[in-house]
């Protein structure tokens, strides 16, 4: 494509007042030979965008650079077909004009915030007496601007900042090519693994949306736990009464649905391929078949915590100590009669211990969210079985989230439900088989004993994503559940986890199952994206991903079905799924220079890259989320996107004019587009002042940081590098899971190199920042700039 470049500078929102736009225009025109350069007020207005459209029609402009507001705003006004036009937004407003000292209207504040600028700016003077002078200077400045020489009115540092950003934007646009989306015929069947409440909901919702569904269930019948319930929790307003499960009706509608194929008694033997092209081998009735599917909903649910580990609570020791699951099964089998196991006698005093293992660092460190509700529900079984029967619930804290509070209230009003906070200090049995509980720290105000016919332990939920043999969720191998293996290589002994296959048996280089973050639950970005996993096209729903009730699971099933559909539809258009939804670029590898170092295949957070025996990466484009972590990882710099590459960003840095003067340092900040970029926008919106010496380069993810840039930029006289990315490790907030962590690991290496070059390693620093911490940003940047000042100028400057 031959580029015809149009540069459009917006003069509103204070941009025209703060900057010499003519100088900007000249840069575009003279330095970069732009075909069209225009300044207009309110580019985002209909008239404004019409100017661009006219140029597209009349001048064949295909590369559009909009220098105005943040790329996050007015997206509709600058929405040009990405397959025809390269659009680059230079954020003059939010990142520059709004973060810099206002020209003359607030001299005292300006003085306080940035004395250096006040000194260098002609029209700006410190002190209170300058007020009138400054006020007088403004109209003069405007007059000059209209006369063609407004340099006296603008802050020199701000202007330089804007100019460098325009240059960087020009370079980026010029280096961008139009994406060539990979469009292939894909299979749009949705495979749902697990036929419980969640899976059934997923299957029905997908079918209702018009998609073919294959529902695979391990057991001989659909329904999962829901079929074993005597009654279910209230799931409709006013959330007060339990009711009989209606799972049979749902099973029937699944069976009657032409679009849903049900395979029961089945196991997934192998999952190969990528979104749109999954080939899943399913075995059932001692035969196996391959199912082609486009996306997968993983709804394999939960299992109860192994109560054999609760011997200290009398389980396995006393016959009348049972789990809540057993209570459910017994009541269901008897049709509502509450009897106890030892002698079949009617149990009219039933004690429940909440958190039987949950929120206990030795057992399940998390709250299972449903056990309090389950005990309240089972307490109603007790009171309904006999008007004189009572249920004693001993809890650490009652947790009945959301509208279930109404059910809690209803249960409290039940005279037969007796609740107390307390700590059960001993559990014993008397000769009649009754269970004696000794309870301390009760709100009854004393240590008490209570005798019950039967004790129900409210045990918690464990995800079925954990292999069956795993007993202790607190002691898992990191990231993947499996076994440690030590292999001897030429680099020494490598210790790695060989993941255990559980359900998916993925044919992925990264292992047969999905990574977890905590306690075995398949991990995704934990704040923003439910259902997502770290395997594109596979969506976890229901209790497999987090403990939840049947009602929540049903919602989850629907939600995950929608994600699966989104994935299919985007993949069919060659587009990325979240978070870069609609991105049609994809990583391309120049294999001739590949050294088979495996960095990219190891670092890819989504298991996009498989590798052959030699270690040559094999891409599965549709698994890719376009973060560019592979691009950052590659020491050969052979991975790039059409519109995002190592060379492009290196050139952007080279476009920065590094002045000779020592009082004008240049600092490059690589900012993550998901958090740091908007954080900076918000800082600007709040008119927080930041140092004018920063030059911002927006990254898809810090994971794309290639070390070559740092060497290049430092040798070009850049004083320092600030990488502003997301929090990583256990509390990570990275949209691409491990991008900011990967950047940090690489940084450790570059810092060693810097030390060897007798440069301060802190010249390259990474900070973790969430979007809501925008108010910290100016200080972070100020501190870093201050530190660089202490180090003195980059010795390579001027070479």
């Amino acid at each position, binding site marked *: 494509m031959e580029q015809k470049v149009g540069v459009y500078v917006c003069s509103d929102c204070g941009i025209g007042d703060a900057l010499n736009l003519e100088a900007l225009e000249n840069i575009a025109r003279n330095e970069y030979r732009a075909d069209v350069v225009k300044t207009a007020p309110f580019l985002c207005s209909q008239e404004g965008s019409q100017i661009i459209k006219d140029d597209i029609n009349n001048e064949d402009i295909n590369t559009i650079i909009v220098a105005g507001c943040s790329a996050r705003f007015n997206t509709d006004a600058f929405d040009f077909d990405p397959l025809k036009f390269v659009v680059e937004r230079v954020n003059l407003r939010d990142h520059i004009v709004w973060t810099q000292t206002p020209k003359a209207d607030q001299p005292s504040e300006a003085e306080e915030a940035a004395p250096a600028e006040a000194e260098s700016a002609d029209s700006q003077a410190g002190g209170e007496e300058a007020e009138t002078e400054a006020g007088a200077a403004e109209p003069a400045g405007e007059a000059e601007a209209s006369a063609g020489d407004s340099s006296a009115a603008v802050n020199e540092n701000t202007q330089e900042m804007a100019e460098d950003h325009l240059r960087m934007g020009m370079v980026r646009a010029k280096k961008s090519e139009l994406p060539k989306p990979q469009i292939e015929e894909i299979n749009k069947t949705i495979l749902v693994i697990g036929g419980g409440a969640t899976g059934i909901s997923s299957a029905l919702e997908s079918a209702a949306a018009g998609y073919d569904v294959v529902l695979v269930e391990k057991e001989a019948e659909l329904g999962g736990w829901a079929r074993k319930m005597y009654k279910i929790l209230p799931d409709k307003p006013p959330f007060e009464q339990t009711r009989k499960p209606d799972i049979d009706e749902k099973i029937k509608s699944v069976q009657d649905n032409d679009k849903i194929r049900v395979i029961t008694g089945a196991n997934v033997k192998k999952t190969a391929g990528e979104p749109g092209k999954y080939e899943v081998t399913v075995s059932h009735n001692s035969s196996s078949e391959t199912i082609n599917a486009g996306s997968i909903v993983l709804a394999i649910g939960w299992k109860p915590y192994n109560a054999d580990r609760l011997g200290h609570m009398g389980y396995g020791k*006393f016959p009348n100590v049972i789990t809540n699951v057993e209570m459910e099964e017994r009541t269901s089998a008897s049709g509502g009669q509450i009897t106890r196991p030892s002698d079949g006698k009617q149990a009219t005093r039933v004690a429940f211990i909440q958190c039987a293992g949950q929120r206990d660092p030795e057992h399940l460190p998390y709250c299972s969210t449903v056990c309090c509700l389950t005990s309240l529900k089972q307490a109603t079984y007790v009171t309904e079985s006999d008007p004189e029967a009572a249920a004693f619930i001993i809890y650490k804290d009652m947790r009945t989230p959301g509208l279930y509070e109404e059910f809690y209230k209803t249960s*409290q*009003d039940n005279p037969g439900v007796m609740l107390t906070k307390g700590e059960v200090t001993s559990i014993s049995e008397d000769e009649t088989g009754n269970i004696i509980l000794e309870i301390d720290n009760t709100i009854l105000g*004393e240590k008490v004993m209570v005798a019950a016919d039967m004790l129900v332990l409210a045990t918690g939920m464990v995800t079925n994503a954990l292999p069956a043999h795993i007993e202790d969720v607190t002691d898992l191998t990191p990231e993947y559940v499996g076994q440690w293996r030590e292999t001897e290589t030429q680099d020494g002994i490598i210790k790695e986890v060989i993941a255990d296959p559980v359900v998916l048996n993925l044919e992925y280089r990264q292992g047969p199952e999905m990574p977890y973050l905590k306690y075995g639950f398949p991990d995704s970005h934990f704040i923003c994206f439910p259902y997502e996993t770290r395997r594109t096209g596979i969506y976890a729903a229901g209790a497999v991903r987090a403990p939840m009730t049947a009602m929540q699971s049903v919602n989850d099933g629907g939600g995950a079905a929608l994600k699966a559909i989104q994935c299919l539809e985007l993949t069919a258009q060659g587009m990325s799924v979240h978070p870069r939804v609609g991105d049609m670029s994809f990583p391309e590898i120049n294999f001739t220079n590949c050294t088979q170092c495996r960095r990219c295949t190891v670092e890819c957070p989504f298991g996009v890259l498989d590798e052959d025996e030699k270690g040559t990466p094999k891409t599965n484009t549709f698994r890719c989320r376009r973060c560019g972590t592979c691009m950052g990882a590659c020491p050969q710099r052979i991975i790039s996107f059409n519109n995002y590459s190592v060379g492009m960003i290196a050139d952007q840095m080279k476009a920065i004019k590094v002045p000779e003067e020592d009082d004008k340092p240049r600092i490059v900040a690589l900012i993550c587009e998901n958090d740091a970029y908007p954080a900076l926008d918000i800082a600007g919106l709040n008119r927080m002042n930041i140092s004018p010496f920063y030059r911002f380069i927006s990254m898809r993810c810090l994971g794309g940081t290639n070390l070559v840039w740092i060497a290049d930029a430092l040798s070009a006289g850049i004083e320092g590098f600030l990488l502003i990315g997301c929090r990583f490790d256990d509390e990570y907030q990275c949209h691409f899971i491990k991008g900011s962590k990967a950047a940090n690991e690489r940084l450790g290496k570059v810092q060693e190199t810097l030390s060897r070059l007798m440069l301060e390693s802190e010249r390259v620093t990474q900070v973790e920042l969430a979007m809501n911490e925008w108010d910290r940003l100016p200080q972070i940047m100020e501190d870093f700039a201050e530190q660089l000042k202490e180090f003195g100028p980059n010795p390579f400057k001027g070479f």
Partner: protein
Amino acid sequence: MADENVEKSEETAGAGEAQAEAAAAEESVVATANPEPESGEPGAEGAPEGESPAAEPAAQEAPARMIQPDIKFVREVMGSGGNDLKKCFQCASCSVVCNVTPDDHPFPRKEMMWAQWGLKEKLIANPDIWLCHQCNDCTAQCPRDAKPGRVMQAVAKMSIPSLSKPGFLAKGVGSPTALLLMTAIPVIILALVIGVLGGGSFTPEREVLGGVEQIVYNNFMKTIAIDIVFSTFFILGILVLALGVRNYWGMMKAHADREGIRLKTGGLAQVGPVLSEIITHKRFGKCDETKDRKTSHLFIFYSFGLLFAATAVSVLYTYGPLLWGGEGTHSPFPTIHPVKFFGYTGAAAGVIGIGLITINRFKHQQKTGMGSYFDWLLIVLVIVLMFTGIGSAAFRKLDIGVLAYPTYFVHLVAVLFLFMYAPFSKMAHMVYRGTAMAFARAAGRDTPM
């Protein structure tokens, strides 16, 4: 025997968790040999030989005690005005806002919990349910609208059958369905007195007294008959209450012993201070939400005092002279007479008091609720008492016989109702609350005034 085992297993369990588990598993076999929910009498726990060993370790760490949750009791509390009992989630706002509770183990939070668990014995063998003055500060401040004040009152009411014997009378008085029957009893008694025993007349003639023909109630119903019948019930009431006080004190004492609390003084030593507190209504003044209750209650309190004085003086004038062979003064007494003085002032105080009480009930309805049947029975009774009393006097003066005699009859029924059921109705509070106050003082468990 059983009790020893309870203690033994408790101590073992307290000693160490790991061993306790095994030990308790064996030893407590006997501990819970009584699986019956109804513990009924405190015998199982409070048998004498169980007392001293329980009191000893209490100083260090209280041993666990077997509790017997009683759902019937919970239902009963909920049916007696404590309908919202179970809403309580033990935030303790009630105990925090209560001004009349002692600081240590404050009420009504623990009572709410005990009541939710149906721990009847704990509740009624405790001075606290009667120390509560139903200010209803707690009810007004309760974030969950569990109305602790109402629960306290319901429990207090429900403790009466255990204290005033025979208990079925208390149950009758407390039950709206029994109202007709309970009213019929004094009506029949009085009718019998008039028609058969007392020699009164249902169609009394007017009598000339002091030169004026006027209504004389003595002809309707002989004063001597009234005095005999009413005195009998009055004395019976006092006896029942005295036994009730003994019961209550015994229960509280036994409970305190189990808890290892030693009384500092005897009960009698506290009579003086308690009376002085009652006379001044100091504790009542601490209510926040219903401050005005102190005034209205003081009026009623002194009204009853004055009316009692009127009765006493009239008895003195009627029968006193007989002792030395003179002739007693018969009713009607002259308008200027000590009896009349006490009567008029008492009636005035009573009307003001009961009027204020009624107004306050409505005024505080939003914040503290209207109160239960148990409350209103007494309020209505006092209203009837006051107005029929005044009415009797007024109609007699105005010489309207058609109204005077029936009014007088109703008045007598009301008074008899009050006397007969005093130990079983809300009237009993004056005695049991006093007992609770004395016990609390003796146990060193009292609010500084």
